[in-house]
């Protein structure tokens, strides 16, 4: 699997912004130190993933879940991250739910529009026509159908 080095890097602009906001004003980061932190972040993702996946595999699960990430962070001695993460994940779940509800609403609205008669859907007019023709036929068939004993 050929992996371009760019794909494994996180956007420099974002990393720089995060660092800048963490440090007081006036601090200068050398290019090398910034690059080192950026690379460290990528390694962190890989290491965290690996640890988390070990927990998932231990529990015979194929899907990496949130509990695995928490367990990994504890293992990595970053357990102090966990309370803040748990808070943030609630917001994330709410946002995902909101998106799901919104898209389901949109789907239902589309379906409702498709079924409404205002579009002149073929169903009703056809039955009207049929009934008319039956009425017409009745009068004429009345004579021909009647079979008297």
């Amino acid at each position, binding site marked *: 699997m050929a*992996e371009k*080095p*760019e794909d*494994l*890097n*996180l*956007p*420099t*602009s*974002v*990393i*720089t912004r*995060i*660092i800048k906001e*963490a*440090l007081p004003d*006036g*601090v*200068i*980061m*050398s290019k*090398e*130190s910034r*690059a*080192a*932190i950026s*690379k*460290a*972040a*990528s*390694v*962190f*993702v*890989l*290491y*965290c*993933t*690996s640890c*988390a*996946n070990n927990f998932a595999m231990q529990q015979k699960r*194929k*899907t*990496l879940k*949130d509990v*695995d*990430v928490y367990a990994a*962070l504890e293992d*990595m*001695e*970053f357990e102090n*991250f966990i309370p803040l*993460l748990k808070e*943030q*994940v609630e*917001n*994330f779940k*709410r*946002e995902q739910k*909101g998106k799901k509800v*919104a898209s389901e609403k949109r789907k239902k609205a589309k379906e409702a529009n498709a079924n409404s008669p205002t579009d002149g859907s073929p169903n009703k007019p056809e039955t009207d026509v049929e009934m008319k023709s039956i009425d017409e036929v009745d009068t004429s068939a009345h004579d021909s159908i009647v079979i008297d004993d």
Partner: protein
Amino acid sequence: MSEEVTDSEVKESLNENSETVPEDTESGEAEKTEKLTRLPLARIRTLIKADQDVTIASQESVFLIAKATEIFVQTMAKEIYRVTQGQKRKTVYKKDFDSVVEMMDEYAFLEGAID
């Protein structure tokens, strides 16, 4: 490793982060116009998939790893700066980063990973 910030990278990170904003307002919940995470989830997912032992990762776990990475960057930057300050400097150098990796257990996993 490309250290240059290309325009496309900046646009990409901005686009991927701002994607969540319009959808928030669409769903009617305009409470959070802040992004939940600045690191693009798609890129994080690429990194996770690089691990061949990983079959599938839940959306939540991808988010958690992204967020944890953000906190990691903040935390590590602060630790590194402490070393810089200790040497009465205002400019952070690579050697300050190296010191942190050497001295602090939590960062030992980075030993040898960054040249």
